[in-house]
């Protein structure tokens, strides 16, 4: 205990040998006590300032950066339209609906299941702001775990925001959120998470949306979000679900399509067609024992075909150095470069880093090719989109070229 604290505490406790217990506000206030008063007030003031500043910083992430309705968006609903108990909570979030001019299949695209994986969120935003549907209906949830966008992970030193420059010189700001639901929405975590499927998971996974499926309608917020998404899948008769993620470059499941066994052929067709376009992607089958993930639970609990996409994100990995906004957008990091030279990574990595536009281009292109494969396999339930940003155009013109200015 330092002297300052000892002084303060002794004022209350009076346990120190050479101190007398003198109540605050007593008449016989001598000089040493006056000094302690001043120290106490200064200390409390400093604490208050720190608490206030942290509070402002913490709540600065509570406001949603705007997403612009693209020309194809016919309607914006809220997740609570499929589960009213989510209304007014941090778990409620927009569902953008793009209806086709012709009937067809129904496609659900999830971004921001993990808000510290911005490539997935940005790919969903790019789709909302650019594409139209010629056949079939597309539901896009760009901030699937909305609550997890409202804070970021403590002790990770990650930025709260990052921005992208548009051709007109303006900037669009996005949040770098957390893998987990904000503790303001649900707290504390249990020691063991008793999953709706009957299996048990580590307690902290209770705030990870991608372990909460198929969810519980009367559960905690994360489970309710999962249940609401399940309700969309069932009530809207979703045929195909694609969940967009990013992963650490040192993680083996990287630049990959993870597929539910029912979607195996679809995923394989997609991989082969992507390969012909020069985009290498690996395939991973969803293991039946891994519970709570979109590709497992939505696949098992509905008629939908489900895939999850991963792309390497150095700003999320454990080997990274200083976690800046620049690292989020460029992916340039000297420690990852060294790890790559040592053969420790599962994604190609060099001095050019792993920029956000490359990560988003991979996701958007994989979604386009996934739909091409879908249309080849299920011509009676076509999902045909127009104006999907092209891979090379995203790389050469940048993400800003496909984001609309916010007035």
């Amino acid at each position, binding site marked *: 205990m330092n002297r300052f604290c000892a002084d303060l505490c002794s004022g209350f406790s009076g346990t120190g040998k050479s101190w007398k217990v003198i109540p605050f506000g007593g008449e016989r206030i001598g000089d040493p006590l006056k000094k302690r008063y001043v120290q106490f007030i200064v200390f409390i003031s400093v604490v208050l300032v720190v608490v206030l500043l942290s509070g402002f910083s913490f709540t600065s992430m509570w406001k949603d950066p705007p997403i612009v309705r693209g020309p194809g968006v016919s309607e914006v609903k809220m997740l609570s339209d499929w589960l009213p108990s989510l209304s007014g909570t941090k778990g409620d979030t927009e569902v953008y609906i793009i209806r086709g001019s012709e009937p067809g299949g129904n496609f659900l695209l999830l971004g921001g299941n993990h808000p510290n994986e911005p490539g997935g969120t940005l790919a969903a935003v790019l789709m909302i702001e650019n594409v139209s549907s010629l056949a079939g209906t597309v539901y896009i949830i760009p901030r699937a775990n909305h609550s997890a966008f409202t804070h970021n992970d403590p002790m990770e030193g990650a930025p709260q925001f990052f921005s992208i420059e548009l051709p007109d010189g303006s900037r669009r700001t996005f949040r770098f959120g957390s893998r987990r639901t904000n503790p303001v929405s649900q707290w504390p975590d249990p020691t063991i998470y008793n999953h709706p499927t009957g299996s048990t998971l580590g307690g902290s996974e209770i705030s990870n949306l991608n372990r909460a499926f198929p969810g519980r309608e009367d559960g905690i917020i994360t489970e309710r979000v999962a249940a609401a998404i399940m309700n969309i899948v069932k009530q809207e008769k979703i045929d195909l679900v694609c969940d967009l993620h990013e992963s650490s470059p040192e993680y083996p499941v990287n630049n990959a399509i993870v597929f539910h066994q029912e979607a*195996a052929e679809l995923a394989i067709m997609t991989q082969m067609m992507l390969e012909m376009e020069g985009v290498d992607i690996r395939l991973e089958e969803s293991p039946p024992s891994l519970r709570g993930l979109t590709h497992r639970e939505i696949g098992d609990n509905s008629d939908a075909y489900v895939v999850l996409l991963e792309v390497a994100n150095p700003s999320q990995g454990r080997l990274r150095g200083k976690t800046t906004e620049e690292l989020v957008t460029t992916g340039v990091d000297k420690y990852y470069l060294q790890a790559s030279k040592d053969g420790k990574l599962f994604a190609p990595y060099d001095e050019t880093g792993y920029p956000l536009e490359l990560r988003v281009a991979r996701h958007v292109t994989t979604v386009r090719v996934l739909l091409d494969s879908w249309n080849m396999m299920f011509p009676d339930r076509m999902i045909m989109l127009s104006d999907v940003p092209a891979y090379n155009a995203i790389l050469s013109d940048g993400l800003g070229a496909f984001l609309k200015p916010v007035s």
Partner: protein
Amino acid sequence: MKKLLLTFFVVLCFAFVSFAAEILLEEPVIVTSAGQSPGALQFTVVAKMVSLDYKFDKLYKAEDVDMSQFKTFVIVVGASGKGLGAAGIDIEVEINRVLALAREAKDNGLKIVICNLEGASRRGESSDKIVTTLAPLASVYFVKSDANEDGFFTNLSEEAGVPMATFEMTVGLKDVLAQYFGK
């Protein structure tokens, strides 16, 4: 839609393939995975494109299969390493399962194809161990080129004096199958 299909098949036709069909393989074919990666499923998708007569189960056991009904045994190698697929797979058990199948196949006069369809992404300690264990029984190798950048498969095929066909892209396997099975 028609345009899309056409493009797909035109590109298929031009997929770069380099090999010489030094042996001919016969149908019916039995296919299994060694390592449980999705490579075996990829094989079946391509096999359908050339209407190959095959039976597939990623977990066939020697005691459940009548090898005498088949002429060719395809083993698609790919271990999932530390990824998602690692959940619940004991690589020693997996090797013993496939080895028992391969011995049964050899005893019944089947030709054995060792196949890497997923390229460099399935070249790791476990996958390599599976391949080297099965190598003495191989009749031919079908290998995606980027899995052979260090000459691993070339060495095995030369040592054993068995042919190897390589292809640049997964769909290139279609031409390999067409050649070797006379499709």
